[in-house]
Each structure stands twice: as structure tokens, then as C-alpha cells.
């Protein structure tokens, strides 16, 4: 069976700083939405895979987000864990920006 994709409006592009991230909570789950230096937008699971720490509080540099707790790092485009102590990858979600509105496929 195929999962039905549910497009959810998360925020406005202007709500996210360039090269920054915000936390987005929806239906009891938490996500992080990133605006890259080139203004492209990405979404990952909101919590670090090392401990349950909100990644949106972390530093975004280029295409990398660093966990605010122990400096684990992820490529937020692919969810790939780049630096220990984080070793499990993050789940990622498709994003589209329509007239400045950020929608996430959850």
C-alpha cells in the first residue's frame, strides 16, 4: 500500500532566516524546516538522532545543521549524519514553496 502524501502548509518563506531553520510542530510531531543560502527549502525530522534535541536551535552553515547539544551534524538536504556523536540519519520530507508559502509533504 502506498502512503498517502499529505501536503501541509508550514510557514512563510520569510519566517525562516536565510541559512537558518525553524521548528515546525504538526499532529503531535516535530520537524525542522531549513532555508539554504540559495533560498531553497528543506525539511527533516525535528529531533537529533543522538538525543531528542530540537535541531532548529542549532547552527545552519551552508547545507549543514549542527546539533545544539553535542555538535553532531547533518546534511539537511539528505538527512545524512555527518559528524559524531550523531550516527543515525534523519528522515527528510519533500518541500515545495508556492508564492512564498512553504508546504511540506508529511
Amino acid at each position, binding site marked *: 500500500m502506498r502512503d498517502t502524501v499529505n501536503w501541509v502548509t508550514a510557514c512563510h518563506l520569510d519566517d525562516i532566516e536565510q541559512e537558518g531553520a525553524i521548528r515546525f510542530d504538526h499532529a503531535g510531531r516535530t520537524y525542522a524546516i531549513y532555508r539554504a543560502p540559495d533560498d531553497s527549502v528543506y525539511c527533516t525530522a525535528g529531533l537529533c538522532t543522538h538525543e531528542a534535541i530540537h535541531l532548529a536551535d*542549532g547552527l545552519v552553515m551552508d547545507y549543514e545543521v549542527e546539533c545544539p*547539544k553535542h555538535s553532531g551534524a547533518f546534511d539537511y538536504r539528505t538527512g545524512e549524519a555527518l559528524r559524531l556523536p550523531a550516527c543515525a540519519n534523519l528522515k527528510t520530507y519533500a518541500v515545495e514553496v508556492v508564492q512564498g508559502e512553504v508546504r511540506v509533504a508529511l
Partner: protein
Amino acid sequence: MNMIIIGAGECGTRAAFALREAGFSGAVTLIGAEHGLPYERPPLSKPDGDGVQRKTICDQAALEGAGIAYMPGTTIAAIDPALRIVRLADRELPYDKLLIATGAQPRRLTCPGAEHALDFRSHADAARVFAGATGPVAIIGAGLIGMELAAVLRARGLPVTVIELGPAPLGRAVPPRFAARLHQRHETEGVRFHFGQAIAGIDAAGVTLADGTHIPATLTVSAIGVVPDLGLASLAGLAVGNGILINARLQTSDPHIFAAGDCAAIAGQRYETWRNARDQAQIAALNMLGQAQDFAALPWFWSDQYDLGLQVVGTPQDAPILRSHPDGTEIEFHLQGDRLIAAAGLGRGNAVARDIKLAEMLIAGGQSVDAASLADPSVGLKSLLKARKAA
């Protein structure tokens, strides 16, 4: 080639994996006195739910996958550097390179009844403390661990009293402004403090202070700092001081033996932080493989008390520049001339993390920074970093 690591804490375990990550294919043996899988200590004083949590550093599959021979519950009593062997109770293991990562042990009180006070260092200690914490608790020592534990027990509704010999809490590593804010928060939460007081004695009913004050407690915890056990190293003839003495390559006075983490003193300085244990492990592993890497990481640590998060990078000095964010988050910048050398921050949750990380990058970059910009919360630190990179 045989690599042996003594001590399976944060440092020893990281070093074992780092040897593999660097491509080493010989034998790696990780020997630890504690039972079970290697675990992280910081969560012991910051438990998520009720009771103690054991957050393992790695699972059995990861150890096996990396081909690390792990020997838990095994204490090494002697090293013979001339023969290059470590001695176990029933046999000897030869090494080509040895890493000592034996950490540190709680300093013991010497007052009458000291045996009534529980330590707080290992998972077993924490399990004992949380199981026994059902009534009023006395915590001796207002350092990071004592204060974190006070916050956790207070949040569970227990009456908590903290007793400290010095005049204020968090004397050593935390800048005074943030130590005072944390102290204030504990007072607001109802923790009682006694400063400048030696302990006259401890018994099952509580703690008696030098001035005769009696603090009733059904549980007393001793958190007066840690000291490395240097017995193994001195017996082996290694140079020791306030820790096992190591050079910039993390080598002891014997070139085949390295030391790292809480037990090691580099340039006379011993660090007792999680990240240092990991950073030194990484460099020690590379140097065991002959890569000649100097250790140069900046000291960094965090502490969580109630919903407040503290982070400190570098070694704070006097007279910092203060950046106050509208949400109450504060960052202190410590300059030497016009160079940033340290920063510290206190705020809710992980509010300080971004600024402290950027400060760390500014410190590492070593260029001059403008004090007025540091003080102005509307100037993003990232812009200072980028301006510098562009310049």
C-alpha cells in the same frame, strides 16, 4: 600490531572506534572496570524520565562490527612498559601502543561519617542515589554535578540542601554572572544553601556543619570533585602530576603509552569534560598510529539545570562583554586585546548554542573582532564571521 585501551568510558571507547575509522586493521582491545556496555555520564545527572538512565555510547553490534575486543568488568592492576604488556589477574596482554583512559574518581570526604555520603560518578552510583532519594537530600559540593543533581531532585519535589565550603556555587569553571543566575534560580525553586561551611560529621539522620547546624537528610550525596587515580601510571614509572603528564601528542613519558580524557594533564592542565574526552581520544588514536597530530581543541562544556542551558567555550577571564537577547539569553565574550578567547552563555534550553558555536569559530579564526558588535544582539555573529572570511 596490538592496540590496547585501558578504561572504557567516553574517551577509551571513542579512541577504539577512532582507530578503526582511521583504517587500522590490527587488534584493538578495550578494557573497562565497569560492567555492561560503555555509557555516557552526562545523562546520569540529567535524567529524561524517572530514575536513572543508561545511555550507551555504542551497542554490542557496533563493537563487534568494528572488531573491537571489549572486556568489561576487568580492572588492570599493572602495566610493564619494559615488556610492553598489561597484566590481568590470570594472564598478560602484549601491546604495541597503549592508551590509558581511566578517567577520574570522586574525591572522598574525610569528615567523621563520610561513609554515609554516596558518590555520584558511575551508573551504579546514580542508581543508588535515585533509588534512595525519597526524602530530604543533602548535597555536599556546589559544583556542576552537585547543582545539576539538586535541580533534578528538586524538580521531583524533594527538599534539597546544598552545602559548599566556598563562598558561592560553581566557583571554578562558570563565569560569576552565570553562577549567580543559576544560584538565584535554585533559590527560587526552593533549594537551600549553606556556604563557607565545613562538615563536622555525617550520619544516617543528616549532616552537621562546623557551626553546629544540623541538616536533616535521609540521603547525603558527596559531589566535591574528582581526582584521577594515578596509581597504575606511577607504578609503571610514568611521569605524573595533577594527572598523567602528556605532551601535545598526548604521549606520556613512555613513547609507547598515551593518556587522554579526565586522567590526563596536558601542559599541566587537566580537563573534565565530555567533549575533551572525545577530542583527545580522536587525536590519541591518530598518534597511536604514528600520525603526529598535535592536540589543539578548545575547551567546551555544557550544563543543564532546570530549563536553563549553559555553555562555555575557551577559558573565561575577567571583564567580559555582555550581549543580552530580548528573551533573557545572555552571552559573555572574553577578549584578549581585540581577539576573542572565550565565550559563555546562559539561556533557556539550547538558546545559547548557536552563538557559542559561532563564538568558537571566531576564536579559532583568531582575527580581531569589534567589541561593539559583540555587545549588540541585533548584529548576527554569523555576519562577523562572514565579514572576516571575506576580508
